[in-house]
């Protein structure tokens, strides 16, 4: 078997697990839960082998030593590694807290990341390292960043669940926040799905999709009718989420997950992720830049956005010390933090580079 077959198996298993976990959420039969865990573990084992195989394949092509062949260097490989860490972290939590209901919140993130890989059609080829990437600092930088990102993703899930469980009224700020957050997620995904479909019809290369086609099929459409319609549709999705969000609350509430446990897992995940992100993401990143170009900090958008994410989590840690900030407010910060992380990773490449490019439209 080669790595891409194994990746295929893992992808399939995670998407299946996502469906089973959600079914489990609805019916709460122990057998269903056990099946979900089993499928997740199968996917995880397959993915672990796949990563190791790819490492070996890369080593044989690159011939620059084991470390220079670590498969974490491009967008595709790092996303795959992120999913791997996320699932590992989730399995640990499921084991430690003996609770399967988070699965329905964590596996969709893995599923979305996998779908994102396939929808955008990003290159899955093994690419030899360009000179700037040939650094051991880079390797630990990327690995630790993604370990931290996955702890932040877990904190995002539990933070969001906390908000769902604890908010009561529709005019409550934190209720509005979480329903809108879920709504925006749905809208963004739908818009990107549309981009992808229309782009396929146009039959252009996949590279351009990410850079200059984002939201061209909906909000940024040249036709004002389409873009107006998109805005109206998006607004109604948001309204729908806000109006009927409490239904989701009912489902989660039946799981009898304790809100305090959710708060604790959120804090614990961030308390693990923050030092790892500081060391791996910021410090090792700075050392790498210093070794490669002689500037440890240059305020480029990527660096700045990692710093912003870092500030948001520092905000989280310190706001916990303030009276009156326990609970919902702090959960909102945990959710916002992960949005900043996703923007650091994808938004900077997709949105800002599009904004800054001179490219013909």
């Amino acid at each position: 078997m080669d790595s891409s077959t194994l990746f295929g198996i893992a992808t399939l298993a995670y998407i299946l697990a996502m469906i089973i976990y959600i079914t489990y959420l609805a019916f709460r039969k122990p057998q269903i839960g056990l099946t979900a865990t089993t499928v997740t573990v199968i996917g995880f084992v397959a993915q672990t082998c796949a990563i190791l195989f790819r490492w070996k394949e890369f080593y044989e092509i690159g011939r620059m030593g084991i470390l220079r062949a670590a498969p974490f260097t491009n967008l595709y490989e790092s996303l795959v590694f992120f999913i791997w860490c996320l699932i590992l972290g989730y399995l640990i939590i499921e084991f430690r807290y003996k609770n399967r209901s988070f699965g329905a919140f964590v596996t969709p993130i893995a599923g979305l990341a996998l779908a994102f890989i396939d929808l955008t059609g990003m290159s899955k080829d093994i690419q030899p390292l360009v000179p700037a990437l040939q650094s051991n600092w880079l390797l630990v930088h990327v690995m630790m960043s993604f370990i931290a990102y996955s702890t932040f993703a877990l904190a995002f899930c539990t933070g969001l669940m906390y908000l769902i469980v604890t908010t009561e009224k529709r005019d409550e700020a934190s209720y509005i926040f979480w329903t809108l957050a879920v709504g925006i997620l749905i809208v963004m995904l739908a818009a990107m799905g549309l981009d992808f479909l229309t782009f396929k019809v146009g039959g252009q290369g996949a590279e351009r999709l990410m850079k200059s086609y984002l939201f061209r099929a909906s909000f940024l459409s040249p036709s004002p009718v389409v873009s107006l319609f998109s805005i109206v549709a998006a607004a109604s999705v948001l309204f729908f989420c806000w109006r009927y969000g409490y239904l989701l609350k009912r489902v989660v509430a039946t799981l009898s997950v304790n809100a305090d446990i959710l708060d604790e897992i959120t804090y614990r995940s961030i308390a693990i992720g923050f030092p790892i992100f500081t060391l791996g993401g910021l410090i090792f990143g700075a050392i790498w830049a210093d070794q490669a170009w002689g500037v440890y900090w240059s305020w480029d958008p990527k660096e700045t956005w990692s710093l912003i994410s870092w500030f948001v989590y520092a905000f989280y840690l310190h706001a916990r010390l303030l009276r009156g900030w326990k609970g919902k407010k702090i959960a909102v910060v945990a959710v916002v933090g992960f949005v900043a992380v996703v923007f650091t990773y994808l938004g900077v490449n997709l949105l800002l580079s599009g904004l800054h490019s001179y490219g013909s439209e």
Partner: protein
Amino acid sequence: MEKKETFIDKVWNFFASVKLAVIIFAVLSLTSIVGTIIEQNVEPTKNIKVLSKLFGQSAAPAAYRIFDSLGFMDMYHSWWFVTILLLFAANLIICSIDRLPKIMKLVKEPIKPLSGDQFKGFSIRKEFVLKGKSELVAQVVKKAIGSAPAEVKEEQGSQFYAQKGNFTRLGVYITHFSILVILGGAIIGIFFGFKGVLNLPEGAVSTVAYSRSGQERPLGFGIRCDKFQVDFYGESDMPKAYKSLLTVIKDGREVMKKEIVVNDPLRYEGVTFYQSSYGIVPGAGAQNGIFRLRIMSKDGKTENKDVHLGDSFAVPGTNSVGRIEDFSPALAFDEKTSRPFTYAEQMTNPAVLVSFYEGTNRKFGGWIFKRYPTSGKLPDGNIVELQDVWGLQYTGLQVRNDPGVWIVYFGCIAMAAGLFITFFMSHRRIWARVIEEKGGARVILGASANKNRQAFERKIDNAISSFTNVKEGGR
């Protein structure tokens, strides 16, 4: 008597508050976002274009003027951003000074036995009965916390108590201090450092570097580029390594030689040279290049020769003479017409056009590529390989002298250590009161940890059960 807050108290408390820290985190994040949307330090037209995408064509110039006057075009160096950073530093310093005495007391204070009903207030509280000797309690406590407890005799028995990791309370302060160190190192770099560039042709020596604005800056020694080279992956145009062989010359002597690549710079007397770009020396005609040929005759004679454009060379052991007619740094053949052309302004795929003569009689000729040694196999069985081209390229070096960088590195190490202590270690305390009863001892245990209480509680439970179980087993 109620103490009145003076104005100075108010200012002090304002700067000592975590609330201000949280506000500053929010302000720094939000303003930094603007700096990633507006491109920093670029020509105005670029940002007007960005703004017109956001606010529309007509509003863009006005928006640009507003943002420009607020310093957003170079915002991370603007007076107000620097002010926020200074506020941040002041907040950290004053907050630390404000709290440090209390924390130092906690760190230094030896643990004391508890009295009366102080045992009630603990988040970790256990009661159990040990059969047999009460000295076992000391072992339980030792196993739970990892260090031997002290003991005092009490009316009904005794009390064991111990603490560990009291210094870990300083982890947060190390973290906070490290931020000040990093900011300090950065400031030293800005005021006393130098950042510049140097484009050094192969063979050339320079004793200066140039700042961005083009000013000369003496290095205190000479630096020479002996060779610049790009390695490619296989036969592709994908670069594998950029290498410059550099020599440091001081007082007329060669004192250091090093081949630098992108992630491995050369350091000498506080100045660091980084590989950052390269190119063909502008205006250097091909006649200045030296072509290193390796000539192998049919019967095995091999000879290396350095030749210029227009030079002739003999193929050893034959009366065939080659002549360099032309050179291209990046040669390709047009797909339709098969006509040769130069496809890049870089030394991507160098080739020389060589004609071979016997007497005045031109026998044959063709392009010989560095990348494809087989292109040098001649019809008469001799081989001529283009091994190297020298003297036409320059290496682009980033030159830096930053006395603050070691301070920044030190701050980074301190920050990592501080965070590790803060999040993965804790100050743990434990007290166990032993009440002697007949046939055994009743134990009341209270414990606390400032972090990760669950882990400590698990350890205590394990310690208790390992001793109570052994007893019950009757051994």
